């Protein structure tokens, strides 16, 4: 599953009939392992982050916030299901099988979304840094050459526009709040920053998809992302970390299945029930 060694060119020769489906693109047969990995990357971001947000249910700092953040989690889970359904159509496995019967090495989510919830500032920092990237990415994906990717992205974009408005609002409230909230928000940002570099790293297989007009160019999202982040942080009186070192670069990140220790623990809890009773029906 998911070979990143440029094997797309071999597939091109063996599936000539499906090239017609890719509008104006030169290289990618449809479907291909590279597209599968890309769609799984999009699905797993939503799935893992939804699971994390679900851990706040009943424990939110305020009732309204409890409802709001779980609403965001449900939105992300809904998007993940759409992506997983597409991945399942490419691959033959069902949504449940993809969600519950893959190991962490087969998950393709960003390292950022699997980080533990921490305190509420940690959760908001993770959410905002992800949402700001996610909204830019989805806007680009609505123009994807793959019709299904474009359709799912268009639906998700309306939800994610609200997510980024919400989370940026909280960054500003906590940052420009009391001394305690400011200190915690700054600490949360500093701790999450090293996971943000991966959002803009594009490996060779993904680069092929970008050139074929199917994937969005994540590297090109960095400039608008950092501009938006700087603007929100300025209003929140928070400092943008100066660190440039990034976890998950060099082809060994979440998108390649190299995860932090947190993911397998989270998946153990998420997957234990279907794995214990694989034939369960309800």
């Amino acid at each position, binding site marked *: 599953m998911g070979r990143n060694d440029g094997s797309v060119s071999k597939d091109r020769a063996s599936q000539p009939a499906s090239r017609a489906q890719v509008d104006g693109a030169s290289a990618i047969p449809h479907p291909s392992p590279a597209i599968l990995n890309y769609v799984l990357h999009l699905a797993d971001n939503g799935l893992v982050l939804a699971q994390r947000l679900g851990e706040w249910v009943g424990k939110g700092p*305020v*009732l*309204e916030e409890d*409802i*709001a953040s779980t*609403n965001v989690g449900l939105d992300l889970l809904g998007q993940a299901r759409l992506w997983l359904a597409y991945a399942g159509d490419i691959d033959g496995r069902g949504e449940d099988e993809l969600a519950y019967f893959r190991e962490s090495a087969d998950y393709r989510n960003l390292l950022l979304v699997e980080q533990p919830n921490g305190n509420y500032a940690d959760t908001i920092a993770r959410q905002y840094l992800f949402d700001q990237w996610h909204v830019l990415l989805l806007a680009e994906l609505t123009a994807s050459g793959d019709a299904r990717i474009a359709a799912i992205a268009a639906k998700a974009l309306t939800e994610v526009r609200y997510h980024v*408005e*919400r989370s940026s*609002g909280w960054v500003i*409230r906590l940052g420009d709040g009391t001394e305690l909230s400011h200190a915690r928000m700054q600490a949360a940002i500093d701790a999450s920053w090293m996971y943000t570099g991966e959002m803009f790293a594009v490996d060779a297989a993904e680069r092929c998809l970008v050139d074929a007009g199917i994937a969005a160019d994540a590297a090109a999202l960095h400039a608008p992302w950092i501009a938006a982040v700087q603007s929100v942080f300025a209003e929140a009186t928070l400092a943008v970390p100066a660190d440039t070192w990034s976890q998950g670069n060099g082809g060994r990140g979440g998108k390649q299945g190299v995860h932090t220790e947190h993911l397998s623990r989270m998946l153990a809890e998420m997957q234990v029930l279907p794995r214990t009773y694989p034939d369960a029906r309800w």
Partner: protein
Amino acid sequence: MSGEWPLWEIFIRSQHGLAHKHVGSLHAADAQMAVTNARDVYTRRNEGVSIWAVRSADIHASSPADRAALFEPSNDKVYRHPTFFPMPDEVKHI
């Protein structure tokens, strides 16, 4: 100072409605948060297209003890209802 956020009353107008209806209340630190929280708490099932949030402290209500004095006199003043002249058909749906 209790440290609790102020209470807001929320009114939602549905897509096919003409008036905002009271749907409940919530706590929020300020007006923008009140509208956002109302969106998350009270419009989960596509209940509406417009939200009004008003601080509960700004709503003034009549006292139930005054109900007799305020409302009973209008019970038997039939001349206040415009029912004594026939309306031509053309005007009925103004």
